[in-house]
């Protein structure tokens, strides 16, 4: 759906994007993470044909950036970092303008569909300026969806939204995913990326890494299982450490943290060993590193 080969963008002496190689599959929710000034927005602008690459190639929905820009703009939707609405005009009129510019056939029908879908129908005649931040963001999302694009670029869709509005936007993204649309999601909200994205790319002028959140966790921290014991002591820990597949053990208060591969297969054996050694086991759970820890670890090394 999106194929990027050695994409580079330079503004004067400033290298904003360097040699980006990436492929995003159809129907995938792809998270694009990076610190401020990393070049995320520049990349999105190139992929939506708003600006031209200095070198390299990008093919979006079968159209090449720089050569088939109008076709690209016709088939992708873009939610910009700020809603960029016409504040003096009503919510409905804001959408009508864009429906016409995107050459939507049933303008009234599409406008009504998305106003209702995003809970804005009752306030459709109110000027955009009077809407709350969350509502403005929802209106901007509706605007990006009017022409039913197969690829949607979302630049910080939930930034500055209250939890309720952010939840609504996330649910909407989940709905779009079910419909098989491809979503390219730029976000600082790592929890959101973790929940919504099939794969994520960590980017800082150049691509740092791209993989599923689960694989990144595994690569960076391994898999860890926590055993809560009433009577944890060094003897019990040594019994576990002696098992051949254990990579590492740590004691934290009354918790034994064990690093290993394939805990689904190995956990019963560990539990058995502990119980046979007289351990009083309270809980067992996987220690899941947050995506934030993964991200910070990756960005720190760049």
């Amino acid at each position, binding site marked *: 759906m999106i194929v990027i080969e050695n994409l580079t963008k330079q503004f004067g002496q400033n290298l904003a994007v360097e040699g980006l190689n990436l492929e995003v599959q159809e129907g995938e929710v792809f998270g694009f993470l990076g610190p401020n000034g990393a070049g995320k927005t520049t990349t999105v602008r190139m992929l939506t044909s708003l600006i031209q690459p200095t070198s390299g190639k990008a093919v979006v929905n079968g159209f090449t950036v720089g050569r088939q820009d109008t076709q690209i703009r016709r088939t992708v939707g*873009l939610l910009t970092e700020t809603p960029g609405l*016409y504040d003096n005009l009503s919510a409905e009129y804001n959408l009508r303008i864009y429906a016409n510019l995107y050459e939507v056939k049933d303008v009234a029908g599409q406008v009504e569909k998305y106003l209702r879908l995003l809970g804005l129908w009752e306030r459709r005649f109110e000027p955009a300026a009077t809407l709350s931040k969350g509502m403005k963001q929802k209106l901007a999302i509706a605007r990006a969806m009017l022409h039913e694009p197969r690829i949607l670029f979302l630049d910080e869709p939930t930034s500055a939204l209250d939890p309720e509005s952010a939840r609504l936007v996330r649910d909407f993204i989940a709905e779009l995913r079910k419909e098989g649309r491809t979503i390219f999601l730029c976000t600082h909200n790592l929890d959101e990326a973790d929940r919504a994205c099939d794969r994520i790319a960590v980017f800082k002028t150049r691509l740092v890494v791209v993989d599923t959140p689960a694989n990144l966790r595994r690569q960076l921290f391994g898999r860890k299982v926590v055993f809560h014991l009433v009577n944890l002591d060094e003897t019990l820990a040594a019994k576990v450490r002696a098992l051949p597949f254990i990579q590492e053990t740590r004691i934290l208060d009354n918790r034994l943290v064990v690093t290993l591969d394939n805990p689904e297969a190995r956990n019963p054996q560990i539990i058995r060993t502990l119980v046979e050694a007289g351990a009083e086991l309270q809980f067992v759970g996987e220690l899941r590193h947050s995506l934030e820890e993964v991200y910070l670890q990756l960005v720190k090394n760049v």
Partner: protein
Amino acid sequence: MQKIITIIRKEWAEVFKNRMVLFTIAFMPLLLTAIPLIILFTMRGEMQIASAGAADIPAQFKAFCPAELSGNECFQVFMVSQFVFMFMIIPLSIPAAIAAYSVVGEKTTRSLEPLLATPITTIELLLGKSLAAVIPAVFATFLAFTIFACGVWLIVPNRIMLLAILNARWLLAVLIVGPLLAWLSVTFSVMVSSRVNDPRVAEQLSVVIIVPLLGLFFGQMAGLLIIDRQLVLVIALILVLVDALMTYFSVQLFQRETILTRWK
């Protein structure tokens, strides 16, 4: 064509909700129409040079004065004729006010990026924005001139004086030079908006376009030049060429990338 109409309607819906722009569009034509009519009305019968003939008046008056008119009437025709230039300020200033708001305003409200992300072409966008600024300006100019012509018809005492004021020079200026100036103004505003980093600078620079017109106004007032029918036609021809060039350059200079990445 649908996209151009959409842009025009959007611009009008937005711009006409801005009180400052509305004030510029409504107040200036009213003012520039009222001033010559007030001058004409107050001068009627009060000038005490009626005894002077057309032959006795200064050279720059003569260009405006048929032989049948008295010196007083010639002077009135001369004075009112200076306001041809004032009528030219209408098609220059209104598009500048609208274009500065519409082009720069898009950037300040950050609505330009989603707009440029649609399949609209640069020519369609600029044409829509330009026409949205030019049409009200030309309409306001024509309306102001119509009101002025009706006022002159009511005030002046005879048909010769009426025709001396509302002559071909006026009609050429209002009907041909006016729209050409309006187009010049809007293309200049678009060019300035495309190149500067600060929207406030764009608004201020757009007004510079009035300066050459003021030069002509004061030149005639000082008797340095006479704006007659031939000169108006020459100005119109020059404007056609300048407008064509300015249109070309405004399209060339409207670089989406520059506008998106340079404006802060």
